[in-house]
């Protein structure tokens, strides 16, 4: 069955809005996650640390180049994900609409192909 990754994309503004009321956000997120567990659809969920704390390894040149800080000029940065095992794309979207996301952020919904769809090693 299709798996979908709900990719959280926050902006500086939405991240700030989220941090302003972090306790409330944590509580509603926990409730949301519990709902998905009880619906039998949640496979994994993680939130990421501040993008400024990240490191980028760039393979443009001959040897990988490591730089500190957020990824490029992108305004909406990957801030966390939910991996869902749902019946349809529409259901993934329906769950995405229920994510307690801060105003201004976006959620990208991407299908994860099954292992029988990926070309196999040695073929």
């Amino acid at each position: 069955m299709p798996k979908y990754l709900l990719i959280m994309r926050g902006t500086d503004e939405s991240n700030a809005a989220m941090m302003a009321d972090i306790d409330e956000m944590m509580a509603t997120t926990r409730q949301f996650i519990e709902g998905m567990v009880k619906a039998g659809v949640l496979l994994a969920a993680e939130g990421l640390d501040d993008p400024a704390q990240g490191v980028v390894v760039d393979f443009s040149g001959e040897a990988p180049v490591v730089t500190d800080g957020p990824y490029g000029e992108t305004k909406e940065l990957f801030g966390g994900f939910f991996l869902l095992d749902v019946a349809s794309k529409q259901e993934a979207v329906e769950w995405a609409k229920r994510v307690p996301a801060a105003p201004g952020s976006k959620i990208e919904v991407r299908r994860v192909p099954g292992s029988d769809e990926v070309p196999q090693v040695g073929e």
Partner: protein
Amino acid sequence: MGTADVEAVWRIESARIVAALTRFTGDFGLAEDAAQEAVAEALVSWPLASPANPAGWLMATARRRAIDAIRRRTALQDRYALLAADLAVDSAVDEEADPDKIDDDVLALMFVSCHPVLSPEARVALTLRVVGGLSSEEIARAFLVPVPTVQARITRGKKTIAAAGVPFELPPAAERRERLGGVLSVLYVIFTEGSTATSGDRLLRPDVAYEAIRLARTLAALQPDEPEVHGLLALCELTAARFPARTGPDGSPVLLDEQDRRRWDFSAIRRGLVALAKASTRGLGPYGLQAAIAATHASAPSVEATDWDRIVVLYEALGRVAPSPVVELNRAVAVAMASGPAQALTIVDELIASDRLPGSHLIPTVRGELLARLGRRPEARAELELAARLCANQRERSVLLRKAAALS
């Protein structure tokens, strides 16, 4: 919003809505009818105007339909009952906010849908429809039966529940374990239909198996202290992990010894092992033991490198807690791998002598394989041909015939 969007919302909300309405009307059949009316209305009105809160819309509409139904019923009777019901149903939405209560209600819904007064077919249909949120059409497709058959099973099931006066509550402590076993066996029947289709031209129907896994996950979340729930979930995850390797490009079955293990779904294996660990807290039950067997296969790099002695021991334990001729037959297969075909043949011949699995293609299949390994080719061929005649799945049958032909 289109049909698929309505269905998606319904998949998520079905159990909670029917559970809340059953709690407050005290009538499972009425609640289910009202919920279905709400879905039918959503299918008509949502494409024209999407509600801001689809889940709330469904609950409110279902609640109104339930009240309408109660009004019709009590029109000439007790007006006080009507008032009481009205109030109760009104509070249903507010009560829904209490997560513990709604969890118990969803659990009660599973127990009602799998109640022993129902026929096995009705249990499966009601569970998928009410708890899983599938339509009659989807259930019919899953079980390869006509839609009216599914509808009749559901209608009859609801009447049976009403006639038997089945209360909407968690079973009393004394019956709890046994009734939970009933729920587990319904989920396993659904899973098995997906993992070894009993009929039709496809060996696997992963979408059907998925429904069982999803329901098992729900049950595991609601009954976290019941090891066998985790055992069933582990068994389903570990079995489904092998699906990608179980059929060839043309849909023909690929048996365990020929499977490309790189195709196994390793994240499903990992989930299965996590569930198995939770199932192992107080000694394994029948599902947990089967999961442990599947886990032994899942962690082996090849058939040869599989811990067959461990699998024999696990089958012996399974045979003690849940004796069955199929378990005995599987034990024979494991013994053949651990200690050779001659010893295994003795077990199979004892099974035949006791005539505990008459008419099944499984015994001649295994016996044919064992005889082939012992070099008794004409006998082996006759057994495999017999197995092919008895086998209902076309894909499996052609594999048996191919093996028989290779022995001539």
